[in-house]
């Protein structure tokens, strides 16, 4: 019996080797011979090697001290522009000259969206479409063609390539699904010579005309962790509720917070919830069964209510807690009166890309890295935001920044997803 098994395994392995050969032969030899011929067409690919090498080195140590320090500073920076229009504010810095793009007439924008798979993105997507309507009425934009990658890097790369070859676009707006993976595709978009606007998550190239984003994940981590540290004592226990591993924007938030907890002697236990309130509640209940919890930290506010309710159901005191500017958290925070903070990953950034396109075609210079304000909502400001967003659904984000757009408030209240 044994022997025949081995015989079969050998057969299996040889078939396997055949397959392996199929991949190695073609992956090594063919490109090597053809690369010379195709090299010219593949201009986008050139000059990346060195960047990639550097980035590979930093992967062992996720935490990036220089980014951390930069974002720490930006938290207290002065922002240019009208505070009434935070979506147009920016930190003074390098500007991109866009005079070459100055031209009249309505333009076609091609928008490659990572996904609309969470309430934050859905809210922003509604806001963006409202902004689009305004710009269409003003004759700035003729149409916006959108491709939704459904949270798949590979699909988004194909989407961008499709736009480049088939889209007849005048400008690209890209919200990358992930940072490193989308870099080559964004570079190809830049190579068309058309303006490229990147927002939310970044890419590892400075080729885009402007890269729009709130300060960032480290700032989120610093704001929240410092708040918890201030309101807790050394040796207290914080439960950190995280959505999922391996997503850089979320890992940054935790990397900063974890470090600050460590430095200040706060005991932190982290857990992946998939943003599922059932998981959140189960986990907190179990943690409460093993001992007291003084603080709750979240890398995104979805499901904050379930976390708070777990304390209620266990008959324990409310923790010090950081959630997000999502309405469900703000409301529950208000109801319970717990000590809390609502960090903000500014949802109003979804307005900025199309406004940037307007500025670019007007030939006005735009910030090369357009850093938008990212200011947490404190207890004192909470009432104002609750009032301003009265009637909005729980999954709405308080700092969505669309109060002056035509559909306000109905389209957000009814959550009309285009």
């Amino acid at each position, binding site marked *: 019996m044994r022997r025949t098994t081995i015989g079969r395994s050998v057969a299996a392995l040889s078939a396997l080797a055949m397959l392996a050969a199929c991949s190695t032969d073609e992956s090594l030899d063919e490109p090597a011979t053809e690369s010379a011929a195709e090299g010219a067409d593949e201009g986008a690919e050139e000059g990346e090697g060195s960047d990639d090498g550097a980035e590979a080195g930093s992967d062992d140590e996720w935490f990036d001290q220089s980014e951390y320090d930069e974002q720490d500073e930006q938290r207290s920076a002065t922002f240019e522009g009208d505070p009434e229009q935070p979506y147009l504010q920016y930190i003074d810095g390098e500007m991109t000259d866009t005079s070459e793009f100055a031209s009249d007439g309505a333009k076609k924008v091609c928008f490659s969206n990572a996904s609309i798979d969470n*309430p934050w993105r859905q809210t922003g997507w509604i806001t963006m479409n409202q902004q689009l309507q305004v710009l269409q009425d003003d004759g700035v934009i003729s149409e916006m063609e959108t491709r939704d990658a459904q949270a798949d890097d590979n699909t988004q790369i194909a989407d961008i390539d499709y736009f480049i070859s088939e889209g007849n676009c005048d400008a690209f707006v890209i919200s990358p699904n992930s940072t490193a993976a989308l870099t080559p595709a964004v570079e190809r978009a830049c190579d068309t010579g058309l303006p490229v606007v990147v927002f939310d998550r970044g890419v590892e190239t400075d080729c885009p005309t402007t890269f729009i984003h709130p300060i960032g994940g480290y700032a989120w981590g610093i704001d929240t962790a410092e708040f918890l540290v201030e309101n807790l004592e050394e040796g207290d226990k914080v439960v950190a509720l995280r959505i999922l591993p391996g997503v850089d924007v979320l890992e940054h938030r935790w990397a900063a917070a974890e470090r600050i907890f460590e430095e200040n002697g706060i005991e932190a236990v982290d857990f*992946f919830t998939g943003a*599922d*309130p059932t998981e959140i509640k*189960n986990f907190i209940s179990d943690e409460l069964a093993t001992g007291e919890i003084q603080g709750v930290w979240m890398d995104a506010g979805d499901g904050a*209510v379930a976390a708070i309710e777990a304390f209620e159901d266990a008959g324990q005191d409310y923790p010090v807690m950081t959630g997000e500017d999502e309405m*469900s958290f703000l409301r529950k925070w208000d109801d319970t009166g717990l000590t809390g903070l609502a960090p903000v990953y500014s949802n109003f950034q979804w307005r900025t890309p199309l406004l940037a396109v307007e500025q670019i075609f007007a030939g006005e210079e735009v910030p090369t890295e357009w850093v938008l304000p990212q200011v947490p909502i404190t207890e004192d400001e909470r009432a104002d935001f609750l009032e301003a967003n009265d009637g909005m*659904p*729980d*999954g709405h984000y308080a700092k969505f920044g669309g109060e002056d757009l035509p559909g306000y408030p109905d389209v957000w209240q009814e959550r009309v997803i285009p």
Partner: protein
Amino acid sequence: MTTADATTTRGATLPMSEGGTAARLGRTLRTPGGAVFVLVAVLLVGVVAANPSFGEPGSLIRFIGRTAPIAIAAMGQYFVIVSGEFDLSMGSVVTMQVVIAGNFIGQDESRILPVMLLMLVLGALVGVVNGLATTMLKVPSFIVTLGTMLALSGLVLYLTGGAATGNPVDSFRQIGRGGIEGVPVLDVIPYPAIILLVLAVAAVWLMRRPFGRTLVAVGDNPQAVHLSGSATWWLKTRAFVLSSLAATVAGIILVGYAGVHPSVGQGYEFTAITAVVVGGVVLGGGRGWVLSAAAGAFALELLFTLLNFVGVASTWRDTVQGVIIIVAVAIGARAWQGGRRRRNTEPTTPGAEPRHTGSAPTTPPDPGTT
């Protein structure tokens, strides 16, 4: 753990009637459907060892309450699996019901009953669609329910713009969150625990009726049932309806327990199927007890709790879970094998291939199908 104890003894009376009580119990526990109760007991001991306060009656009953939705879903999934099918749409049904509760009930108490009725009707409808597409259109249930899973969740998200309106009125949420207060010893009996008990009794009753016996028979050998004249399509469709209704009840409880969020229910189908399989029910049908499926759910929840108490690093939890599921099911497969060797000397290797056509088509389902 009253339900569990009750089953162990009941199970013992069923499979083989010869021998003393202890011997019979021992034999039962060696079948996968019985072994899961041992697994639950072992895990319970582990959890209590890791955190003694968990062993207090108040904690235990709360734990039963919180496990109720997944246990109910597992019992629903059991009906489908034992008849030889899969229901992957369960998670989407849970999400759909959670969202309907949030959006339609809102803060208006008078709407609770009509909306609950609507939820049950919609749940049953999904089951009917799944069942008819599987039986009438002859599409594998894995594919049918994968299709309903995609279509349902897409539709719900589209119609509700991300399903984020907010929690329904608190009195409705009490079903999943509240309980009978002031009970001696236990302190509180969560409503979900009561619902679970009622549904477990109903499920056992159902499996002892001709419906249940034929359902297992159809899973064991579709031809046999067909030849005997029962309408397979109607049997299986009812199984799918039961599964969707179980998902509906789980959804109602989860709205209370966790609140409204589009990710409630995500992955529920896999958890439920895993629970059923850990409960010793054979994928492919024809074998297993409904209460073992519920016990499988308890085993999984206890495992998660144990991981929490022991403080396994967050990123390694999935790995530990994966290993334990495979090991548990592998042991279960051995047990079936052992169990069947005694009855049937035919040189088959069951488990991976549950239905061996060698047995007479008229073989009644395993006695222990309740």
